[in-house]
């Protein structure tokens, strides 16, 4: 049987009475509901993240430079070309 990690209540008011044993095999309504909530929350976050990525074009594999960065890089590139000429 796997050893259950140390219990750390996520919210105040969650208490364990002495003698309670927690393990993965034993049904635990609190943990089941927590898992459901976490799964729903993760799915929601993933959906939001995908939407945001599509809207802001961040779906590209590398972050795109800002307007200020682009201006600086172009200016520097031109300067280098002029110096190399």
């Amino acid at each position, binding site marked *: 049987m796997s050893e259950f990690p140390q219990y750390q209540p996520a919210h105040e008011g969650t208490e364990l009475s002495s003698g309670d044993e927690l393990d993965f095999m034993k049904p635990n309504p609190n943990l089941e509901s927590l898992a459901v909530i976490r799964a729903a929350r993760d799915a929601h976050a993933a959906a939001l993240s995908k939407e945001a990525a599509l809207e802001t*074009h961040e779906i590209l594999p*590398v972050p*795109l*430079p*800002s*307007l*200020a960065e*682009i*201006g*600086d*890089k*172009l*200016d*520097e*590139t*031109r300067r280098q*070309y*002029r110096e*190399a*000429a």
Partner: protein
Amino acid sequence: MAAVFKRALKLLIGTDPSTRDLMYAKKARPLGRLTERELLQLESEIGSQLFGDIPKGHRRSFFNLDPKTWIWHEEWLEDGTLKQATTRYEVHEQGVLKVQEGARYEFLEGQELDNLTLAAQMYYERVMREIYKRDPQTGQNLS
């Protein structure tokens, strides 16, 4: 090319349009020997292509003038008269200021800001690869 267009182009680009194409012949004139103004003209050629087909009789320029300034210039003939419009986009810490002749200054927001940012990113990608032959991410030579 109509004389009026030649004069307008000369005013805009500062050179005789009939000789302008020669500047783009990279083999005849190595890129490294171009002036900064000529480099900007090359960049503007790419910039003008970012927004789809240019209407017949129109001329469009879009380029990065300096680290803080982007220029959109468009000119066309209307009833035999040359019309033109220039918009300057100034990059400030608090946002991008849109400056047009005869119009009040305003900071870009919403879709217009998104469109400018995306256009600048596309411009940067193409200019770095096609003119300077550099990797846009690293700035290193592609060859």
